[in-house]
């Protein structure tokens, strides 16, 4: 949950939220549509550069967050590279009694391409996540005219998440000092107790929060104050140069 904290303390927090979302989503789309190694590399370079230099995110933190999807990525890309067959069909084959594990050059190339593409996607997503507080992201969705009900729910859920997390953490600490996680059996029991208790608390809180909303004149529409943050000419020029560079890389080079 620290990503939220970094988003508020980033050097890019004051940038226009719509601009950042557009930049991230645009990068994502271009990366998966072009699907070229050099474009992925370029996007990784620019997006990580923005996060680390303009956003002033410590590089160790960034590296830590990049390892989160690593297990999934590694397993999946190995599966893309590797094939099982009854006869040795690949460029490199390992015999395992009944069948062969085949690896083709083509497969390795595809796996590497997918890996880089996924990394580029993550770097674009992180650029946005580490610089845009969730409230502003939801406001961008609101400007895109998503159903009001959905946006309102998102606003409320976002607020409630932190309340519940704090409560859950307090209960976990209380359980831990009482050896609630002493054994695996006890750990399961504690986990279930906390989860059950959290549910009761959350339902009770929901009742009270509705009263609080109603007392402030809530009639089915939540309004939030938004800061106006114009996009600077330099940012626009940078974005245009970046997109142009990607298109040139994708279209005019072999």
């Amino acid at each position: 949950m620290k990503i939220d904290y970094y988003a508020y303390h980033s050097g890019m927090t004051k940038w226009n939220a719509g601009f950042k979302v557009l930049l991230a989503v645009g990068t994502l789309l271009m990366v998966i549509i072009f699907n070229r190694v050099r474009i992925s590399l370029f996007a990784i370079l620019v997006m990580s550069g923005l996060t680390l230099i303009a956003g002033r995110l410590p590089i160790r933190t960034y590296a830590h967050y990049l390892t989160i999807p690593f297990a999934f990525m590694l397993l999946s890309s190995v599966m893309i590279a590797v094939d099982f067959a009854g006869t040795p069909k690949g460029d490199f084959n390992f015999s395992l009694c009944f069948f062969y594990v085949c690896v083709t050059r083509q497969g390795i190339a595809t796996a590497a391409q997918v890996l880089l593409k996924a990394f580029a996607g993550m770097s674009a997503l992180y650029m946005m996540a580490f610089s845009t507080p969730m409230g502003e992201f939801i406001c961008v969705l609101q400007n895109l005219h998503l159903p009001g009900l959905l946006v309102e729910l998102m606003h409320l859920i976002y607020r409630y998440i932190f309340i519940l997390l704090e409560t859950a953490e307090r209960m976990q600490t209380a359980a831990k000092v009482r050896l609630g996680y002493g054994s695996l059996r006890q750990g399961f029991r504690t986990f279930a107790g906390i989860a059950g208790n959290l549910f009761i608390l959350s339902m009770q809180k929901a009742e009270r929060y509705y009263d609080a909303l109603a007392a402030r004149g809530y009639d089915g529409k939540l309004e939030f104050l938004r800061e106006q943050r114009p996009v600077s000419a330099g940012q626009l020029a940078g974005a245009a140069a970046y997109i142009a560079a990607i298109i040139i890389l994708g279209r005019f080079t072999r």
Partner: protein
Amino acid sequence: MTKLQKNVWKASIAIALALSVCPVSNAMHIMEGFLPPALCIAWGVVCLPFLVKGLINLKKIFAENRRAVTLVAMAGAYVFVLSALKIPSVTGSCSHMTGTGFSAILFGPSVTSILGIIVLVFQAILLAHGGLTTLGANTFSMAIAGPLLTYGIFGLCKKLKVNKNVSIFLAAALGDLFTYCVTSVQLAIAYPSANGGVAASALEFLGVFAPTQLPLAVIEGILTVLIMMAMESYARPELKAIGYGR
């Protein structure tokens, strides 16, 4: 603690101990950038009817009772927090519940689809699990397919008068397994195997994720039963208020 609860504890320790060697991974979110654009859009389109149905149902609920707004929002936050809490395991690895099966049992599949997609957006942005371009595919496997099966099994078991705890376990565990199967098929469609096509590739993905996902499904089932038991002893009125157990 009743005798029944004791037995469930005992069973849970036995299974958990047998399986505690492995769980290392999170619930299976397909990562950002992993799917080609056509599939990103296709899975999004597949989700649309379910989401529209969910929104219409929610609107109806809110029109009848405005107080439900904060209740449903809290439920969404609860599902998120449940999926963010670390499950205890001896190896010290970190694994999480999906929580959507639980939500399906409590709130039904249509509300779960909406809560699920919101939770997935938050997981992508706040926890770096999953992504925006893969949101459609992840929503289908985790917020629609899994919960639908969970809900179906729970309903079926109720009709067949199966023991409640057994049915909750089956519903949650099988829903989790189904999610993992759907994700594997989604990956296989995106990256079919050169020799055997989509089917062979799906088997490969199923195989490689099985060691982490099978125990996780069992653990998810056990925990869901334990949580429901905890709730039924403490939160009967709240459960009634959201329409569970009628």
